[in-house]
């Protein structure tokens, strides 16, 4: 597309990314508020049917560069149903050369049969929900694997898929600086291509929320949590990882391209319960209840529960905020070309203030978060978004 195309068209080219939500898990962990069903494997077949129906509405087969299977736990599907999942998705999407196809997996689910299916259908990136190597912490997080199983799963996965990412959680009551160092070191010892570290977020609706309210456990203080986060950033970057987004670290060349599409304001298809898509400038979210999703789709109704199209300046602000969550920041000129708005116009005052306070830095035409800004960035976004 040429640079002279109207901004609307430049802004909303057809998606080159797709997300598939697989809402099944063996069990729900205490901190989880995602769209999923535990112990309802009886619904998998209906889900596959509904997914096929939903995807068929997209019409002609589309070529895409990145595809992401998330959940839930996609790896929870037995090999045979996993195969059917891929058949259904592949019917709709054609992966272009140099594609990235990611799938979220639980260490306990990794076995030869499943790995064979993944390899056969071209999955080339695995995101492994390790969370920790510490037995007590794993128990606290209500995970169903042991540290030993992580090693086995990792070895087995690596036999077929080179690009494996590990998820780690910090800020549990078990996370002393020493315990967290051990987790980080063990993760590094596996030499994964990518590591995501997430501060434990306890949201209303999770069982952790009510347990913490009742005082069953306490989250670390703000200061301690910050030190843990900084410890992770320092440890991983020293080990050669690039800190490229708030919670994401990659070996050179191993960033998750699919997620970068989200953060850069790119378009993407999506299917499955609770899945969110961004197509032609409209953000839509499917119904979060899996059973409602199934009923609606199988009855020939739309699964969409929420839909919005932002006014151009709001869209530009949204884009600015999510792009700034990437550590390399925003190219000021490119931003204006892409959105039709200068940063000055849509958030000039806030940005100037953040630069003055040392929360943003502006160098060589690039606006980016400083370390200090990163730590308190949610408070910055409020000021940019609410005008």
């Amino acid at each position: 597309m040429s640079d002279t195309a109207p901004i609307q068209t430049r802004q909303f080219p057809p998606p080159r990314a797709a997300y598939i939500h697989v809402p099944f898990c063996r069990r729900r962990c205490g901190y989880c508020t995602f769209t999923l069903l535990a112990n309802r494997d009886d619904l998998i077949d209906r889900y596959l049917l509904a997914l096929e129906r939903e995807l068929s509405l997209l019409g002609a087969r589309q070529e895409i560069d990145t595809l992401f299977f998330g959940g839930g736990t996609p790896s929870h599907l037995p090999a045979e149903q996993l195969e059917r999942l891929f058949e259904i998705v592949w019917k709709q999407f054609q992966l272009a050369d140099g594609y990235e196809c990611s799938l979220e997996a639980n260490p306990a689910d990794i076995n030869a049969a499943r790995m064979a299916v993944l390899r056969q259908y071209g999955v080339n990136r695995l995101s492994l929900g390790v969370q920790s190597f510490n037995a007590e912490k794993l128990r606290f997080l209500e995970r169903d694997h042991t540290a030993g199983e992580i090693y086995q799963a990792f070895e087995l996965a690596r036999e077929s898929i080179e690009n494996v990412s590990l998820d780690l959680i910090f800020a549990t009551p078990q996370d002393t600086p020493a315990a967290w160092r051990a987790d980080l070191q063990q993760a590094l010892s596996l030499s994964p291509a990518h590591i995501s570290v997430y501060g434990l977020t306890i949201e209303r609706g999770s069982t952790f929320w009510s347990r913490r309210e009742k005082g069953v456990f306490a989250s670390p203080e703000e200061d301690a949590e910050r030190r843990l986060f900084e410890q992770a950033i320092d440890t991983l970057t020293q080990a050669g990882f690039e800190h490229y987004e708030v919670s994401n670290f990659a070996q050179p060349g191993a960033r998750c391209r699919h997620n970068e599409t989200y953060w850069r304001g790119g378009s993407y298809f999506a299917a499955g319960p609770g899945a969110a898509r961004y197509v032609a400038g409209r953000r839509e979210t499917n119904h979060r209840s899996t059973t409602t999703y199934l009923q609606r789709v199988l009855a020939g109704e739309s699964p969409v529960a929420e839909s919005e199209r932002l006014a151009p300046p709001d869209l530009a602000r949204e884009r600015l905020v999510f792009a700034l969550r990437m550590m390399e920041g925003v190219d000021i000129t490119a931003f204006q070309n892409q959105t039709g708005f200068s940063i000055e116009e849509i958030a000039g005052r806030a940005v100037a203030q953040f630069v003055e306070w040392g929360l943003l830095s502006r160098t060589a035409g690039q606006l980016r978060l400083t370390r200090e800004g990163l730590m308190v960035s949610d408070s910055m976004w409020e000021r940019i978004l609410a005008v």
Partner: protein
Amino acid sequence: MTQIARAAQIDCQHIRNFCIVAHIDHGKSTLADRLLEFTGTVTRREMKEQLLDDMDIERERGITIKARAVAMRFTFEGETYELNLIDTPGHVDFQYEVSRALACCEGAMLLVDAFQGVEAQTVANGYAAMDNNLAILPVINKIDLKHQRADEVAEEMEHSLGVDQDDVLRVSAKTGAGVQELAEAIVRRVPPPKGDPEAPLQAMVFDSHYDEFRGAITYVRMMNGTVRKGQKIRFLRAGMTREVIELGQFTPQRTARRQLQAGQVGYLICNIKALDDVNIGDTIVDAADENAVALQGYEEPKRMVYCGLYPSDGQDFSELRDALDKLAINDPSFEFEPESSEALGFGFRCGFLGLLHMEIVQQRLEQESDVDLVQTAPNVTYEVTKKNGEIISVHRPQEVPDLGDIEEFRQPIVRVNLLQPVEFVGPVMKLCQERRGVQHGTEYISTTRVMLTYDLPLAEVIYDLHDKLKSATRGYGTMDYELLGYFPADLVRLDILVNGKRVDALSVICNRGDADRRGRAVVKKLRSEISRHMFEIAVQAAIGSRVIARETVKAMRKNVTAKCYGGDISRKRKLWAKQKEGKKRMKSIGSVDIPQKAFMAVLDTGANEK
């Protein structure tokens, strides 16, 4: 002959004008209801609970704010009498209205609860009634109570009010016991009004209210002469001439009459569109009477307490003004004028008779309009004599001249009566001493109850003395105060700085000796009210350029969403935008969001730190 005509013929000998002086909750309204019922003025079925208190807020608070006047008929020993009950406000903020109501009566019922006994307010208003030479009818109410201690209370009344125990009437407004005797006592013991129906007209305005259809309803006590429908009258103070369109009495609803004559109590409607044209204490005379003489005792309403009221969102300014205008129509003692604050933008400086009056006005504003308010800490009016001899009234801290220009700084001092059971005398004395009180007297009104009298700065009284008294006496203490005058004091303006910027709306005037303690308390309170920001916030208290206290709101350490992928974008964007919306209800000073209630933080006297 019609009722109206008959009513007009009553002479002074058959009129009794009286009021009821009582503490809150001692049963004044219930007793008034019983009298209305007993005299057949209102039947039980017509009786709304507490008929006289017809404003919602009054009922909620169980206090009477505006005076009312009701005419009743009572036949005794073959003669028919007109009993005019003039209801008085029970609270000290409305003392001037009380004084005008007293001036319209020949008798006052001092009503005391048979269990709670004499309270400070009863004493204060009781003495005021005696000062007005009213006949006193001491009455003990609630004798039906299981825990009544009427004998002791009669003794208390003797000691505190100097009444003869044998003269004390005992009633139960609830059951009606003693009400007949009470009505008889009113006829026998309250003298008839003096005044000549044939003399030139003189009527005292003792209250008013606003009727949206008829305009101002003026409450009058006829002192001399006769007023008739259609007559041209003149309000001496207001210099306003009007025709009487309707006149009559409250029975208790408005009932039109042909005339009102000396001794009677009633209302006039004369096409007055704004209540502030009707001055309480004004004298009404015949318009043609060139030599008319004003009755004594008129005073301008004294606003004792001021505060700033600001819309929390600047756009509501005109809405707030409309709401204040509407309130002022019905309450001439409330005044307001526009002011602006660097910190709060455009708002109004509002003057009130006292703290309760202020609370009532605010509550009405909230109930009757949608304006979200930021209120600054209330302050009293000070007087300053400048070095150049000029005397100024200071209604807000920002108006205090530079220290170097001040010759003398004066503050209002009030005499406070505090009445409580003996065992609480120690804590109450401590309370008053902490507030720079000077003890004036101690009086045992019975073996178990003591009245302390202190002279205190009004500023100390309005902040929290009443609440503190209640907590120091487990609720048994009561207080009342009257203004003594303005006296010099070593006062300073205490400023609050947020990140080096003076927040004008947070300045207070206080005694120099208290400034350190107040300053420390205020900055500490502010520290806890202001949430962590992205930067460190210094909160300082200063006198002039000298910083006397400092607290720091530490910068936020970590506030960052970990997971943010395709499905989170809409949700997070909305969440962040909404959080900021929530903060819009705060006032942003520089870049610091200050919650509304922090503007009341300056009331924290630091007394708990001692």
